Every structure is written in C-alpha cells, then in structure tokens.
C-alpha cells in the first residue's frame, strides 16, 4: 500500500450540533476510503452538492480539521496521530491548497507578491530574496504570468482569473506532490474556468503534480479528472474513472446529477423532486438517497448499502448493484 501518494481509509468526521444533552450528531464525512496512486500524476475529482461533506474532506486533507476516526496517509506517512506524522514545514512542502475565492484568499491590504516571497522563504525553497525572485519568476511564467506585472500589485488590481492563477503559482512554489483545490473555479465565469482547468492539466504534465479537485461542476470535473468520487451526504456513493462514471453512471444519485446538468442540445422533459429537509437524509439509517430514489426497496431504507466492486476500478455504494442483497 506504500505505493499510494494519498490514501484515505475509513475516514469519518462527526460534528455535534445543538445542546449538551439533546444535541444531534451529524456525520459530515462518513466512512470514506479513497486513494491516489503514486506511480503517475492523477487528478481526482470529488463531486457533490453543497452539504455533501466535500469541503470537510478537503479541510481534513489539509490538516485544517482533525477527523473523528479513520486514517489519512501521504506517501505511507500518517497525517494525524502521535508518532511518525509530518512536521508542519515538511507537510506544506508536500501538499498545497488552492481555495475557492482568490479575493478572499489574499488580504486586500498586502501586495500579492508578498505571499509568493513568504511562501518561498518560509518553506526553505529559497535562502535569499534574490533566489526567491528567480524561483517565483519561473513559476509565474509557467502559469502564463509575468513577474514584473505581478510585483507590487494588490488583489483588486487583478481579474478573478488572473488572481486565481497567482494563487496556483503560489501553491506551486514548494513543488508540492499534491495540490488540494477546493472549488477553484466556482467564483469564476464560465469562459475563464477553462483557462484555469487547462492550467491544471498542463501542470500535471509538466511538473507531475497530482490534484484533488473538489467541485460541484460536473462538466469541468469530466474534462480534467482521471478519477472521480461522487459524494452524497458524507458518503462516497460512486467512484471510478471519470469518463466511465459520468457517461455510464451506476448509482441513481449520479444519474440524477447527470440529468440535472443544464446541457446544450437536449432539453429536460421530466419533473423533479427536491428534498424538504436535508438533515433527515443525513440521519437516515439505510441508504441516504432512498427517500428520493426511484429504485428504492424496503431493504434500502433499513440497511446500509454495501460497497460493490464493478471492475475497472469502479465502486458503487448501492443495493441495486448487488441485486438487493447485503
């Protein structure tokens, strides 16, 4: 198993809400297992709607939140625990984040190049400011920006797409093996999104960086990713190669998602039901999608569905795939 760059095993994060006695528990991430192989760079997309736990998962991978149970390993080394974990600097050289809204990621009172220099100096990439300038210049060039045009500017002087490219460049400075990108294109226009996701493909080829791409946008996920994990109410309900999962979805929820992407060239014809109260779905004892699923049978409402292997690296969390036997 040591040949996995990222390995997540039975990861669970439970949040408690409400009072001391009558509070409810909500599993934002529920028994999730995923892996990214180390032998070649890959882009793993985590797709789900708001409240599916995808951001919590990303935050755990960035060590911004501790899991309730389960394990996360990077290159065979655990992220959490008492012994043998990553030191902070070492961890930041290995993993870097790109966040949703670049205008919130950078302080409006600081020039953006101060972030680039701070990253280079603090993580030991460069010893002196001159060395740092060289490293930063090279990296900005690789995302299509010019150091002279970035230096001394404040965030508001950039457009959203440019600033997101600066934040990608910042993440690249320590030459990380893995970049965790949490909704990196949601704040951008459709026409600029492609420029950013093309950048990811380019960096994967050029520097061999792997990505965990967290998004709710299925079309860009299909476009960039090698593997895709569909999350629903904290669980990974379907996993597999992106092309196969999205063109021939197996889980009814993935099918629903695909039907709801506003496509050009094919109009919607069927009606749709929305859930009334989402917390009910979180607390469901059986399959969490059962109340909305057209294929649901009694067993789905009572028991947890099994993770069924479909071959070709595909997995689905559904009774339908196992002929309704546990």
């Amino acid at each position, binding site marked *: 198993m040591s040949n996995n760059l990222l390995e997540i095993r039975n990861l669970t994060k439970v949040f408690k809400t409400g009072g001391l006695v009558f509070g409810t528990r909500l599993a934002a991430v529920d028994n999730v297992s995923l892996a990214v192989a180390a032998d070649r760079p890959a882009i793993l997309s985590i797709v*789900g*709607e*708001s*409240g599916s736990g995808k951001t919590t998962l990303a935050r755990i991978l960035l060590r911004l939140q501790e899991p309730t149970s389960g394990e996360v390993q990077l290159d065979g080394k655990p992220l959490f625990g008492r012994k043998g974990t990553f030191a902070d600097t070492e961890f930041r050289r290995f993993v870097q984040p790109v966040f949703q809204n670049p205008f919130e990621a950078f302080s409006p009172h600081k020039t953006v190049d101060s972030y680039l220099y701070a990253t280079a100096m603090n993580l030991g990439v460069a010893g002196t400011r001159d060395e740092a300038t060289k490293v930063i210049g090279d990296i900005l060039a690789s995302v299509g920006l010019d150091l002279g045009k970035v230096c001394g500017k404040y965030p508001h002087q950039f*457009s*959203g*797409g*440019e600033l997101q490219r600066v934040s990608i460049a910042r993440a690249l400075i320590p030459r990380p093996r893995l970049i965790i990108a949490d909704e990196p294109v949601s704040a951008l*226009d*459709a*026409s*600029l*999104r*492609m*420029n950013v*996701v*093309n950048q990811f493909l380019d960096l994967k080829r050029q520097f061999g960086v792997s990505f965990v791409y967290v998004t*709710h946008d*299925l*079309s*860009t996920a*299909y*476009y960039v990713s090698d593997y895709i994990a569909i999350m629903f109410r904290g669980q990974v309900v379907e996993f597999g190669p992106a092309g196969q999962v*999205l*063109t021939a979805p197996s889980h009814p929820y993935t099918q*629903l*998602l*695909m*039907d*709801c*992407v*506003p*496509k*050009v*060239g094919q*109009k*919607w014809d069927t*009606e*749709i*039901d*929305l859930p*009334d109260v*989402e917390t009910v779905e979180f607390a469901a004892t059986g399959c969490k999608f059962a109340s909305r699923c057209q294929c649901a049978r009694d067993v789905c409402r009572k028991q947890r569905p099994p993770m069924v292997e479909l071959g070709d690296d595909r997995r689905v969390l559904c009774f339908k795939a196992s002929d309704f036997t546990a």
Partner: protein
Amino acid sequence: MQAIRDLQAHYVTPTVTVRAVDGVSLDVREGEILGIAGESGCGKSTLVKAMYGYLPTPLTIAGGSISTTVRGPDGKPVTIESPDMRSIWWKHISYIPQGSMSVLNPVVRVENQFYDAVPKSDPRRRDRKALREQLVQYLRELDLPATVLKAYPHQLSGGMRQRVIVALATFLHPQLVLADEPTTALDVVVQRGILAMLTRLQKKMGNTLVIVSHDMGVHYQVTHRMAIMYAGKIVELGPTEQVFTNPRHPYTAMLIRSLPRVGQAGLREGIPGSPPSLITPPEGCRFAERCPHATALCRERVPDLIDVNETHQVACHLAPAGIAGGLAE
C-alpha cells in the same frame, strides 16, 4: 411589456463614471422568457436593476428610456416610465436579486416577510387569517411545506431559501418577474428544481420572465429568446435555438464553444484576454481586442445591431460575411 430605448445606466462617482450599460435597446414581449447572458462585469445586472427601476447610488440613468406597460386595475394598459416604478413593485413587477441567499430579513419569520410584501392598499391585508390560508394554499401549489412559514431564514437550506424567495416574488402574480442569477450559488439538482418551478409558474400565470445568468446551459434549457451582452452593449439578440445553432457574433460562438461537455473529449480553450474597461471603453467594436477575426474597421467603428432575419439581430461588422456562423460546431 417593456420597451427599452438607447438606455445609458452609469455608476457616477466624483472621480470616475463607469458606463455599465451603454446604449441598450430591447423590447420585452408579453408572455416570453427572455434570457440575458454574458460574463461578469458586462452590465447584465445593471440592466436588470434599471428595468426594475431600482437605482441605488451611484447608479443613475444617464440617457434613454424604459417604458413599462402593465394592466391597470380596470384591465386597461397603463404605461409607466422608469424610474417612477415603486408604485408597481411586487404587484406588477418583481425582482429576485443576485445572491438571494442574503435577501431575506434574518430576524423576521418567513411568514411575516410575505405579509410585508402585500401593499397597504390591498384589501387582503386587513384579514390576516384569510391571507394566511391563501399563502398556505399557494405554497402547497409550489410543493413547499407550510412549516417554512414559521421558520427564520437561517433555519432553511440554501435551496429552500431560494424557493421561498421565488414564492415571495410571485405571490401577488406580477406580470413581469426579473430574476438576476437565480441559481448561481446552487448545485445542479436544486438549480434544476428552481428553474422548473420558475417555468411552471410562468406557464400557469402567463407572465413574462427575464432570467440573467452567465450559464449558457441554463439559457438553452429555459429561455425562448436571449440577449448576449458584452461590455455594456447587446451584441446578439435572437430566439434561443437560433442563437445556439447559428451564432452570428464571434463572442457568442466562443462562449458556446468554451463550455466543456460530458461525453466529449478533446481540449477546450477559454476565451483569451479579459473584457475592456467600462470607464474608458475602446473605440470601435468592444470585442475587437479578443476577437480572432477583427479587422481595421472593427477597431474604428462601433457596429450597430443589424437584422440577420426578422427575429435575430447581431452587432458585428463581419456578420454579413457569416464569419461567426462557421465557428459553431
């Protein structure tokens, strides 16, 4: 329904003037769903604000006119000139603002926000009980549980809040509903639910709906006619099917082509560059800088909206030669 003539809507501050809407003429027809598309900063939200007659400082109407025709109490049409539109808000024209996650008052129960929307002159306002019954009935028609009425906005999920806002905006059966990015922050399943709700209501009440969105897929799914805006101007206007199958402006063609689609392999490029400044807009066609087909003429003279056919207009010097048509797949 609404006639917009050479509208100039500017943000005026002592130091700069941002010409967010710069010479837009548009007719909103009765009973249609009109889409307004474009990148952020192209003036689409400003246009809708002007259409609603909502002009927060420093937004001002610097030129042109907007006339809104609504059915008066006696059934006869009444024409109202912008910006004196406050008298017809809610009852005849309603507006779903952008970022509607935060438009509900956080300290007032949903129920009371509905009552506040009913004008003081409305006789229904005197009988709370009857009004509440109507309200519950209306929510049932929209498949919303009556329990939302007792809730505060923070107790509702994003999708539910947005559905409440749509219900609120349509409760008095206005003849014109303006929705500014009604589904932008939502995920696809909820987005589809809300678009279905808007179109179902439109069909039932036969009113006019204007939807602003930067998502071309949304326009394809719900609108009858669409206007593409670029840097404060309308560059293309036509029936949605025609715009998608035969775009005549290079910008429209690039916008459609840049969308990745599930099931289609191959690299896709975004549109290079960024829109021009609206403080000092360039001479000539505003898209010329990013247009792969731009000629010397494009950089000199502003193209007018010309007819492609009776229903389809485009503002491009190259349109007669059919340049953009060849760009679409």
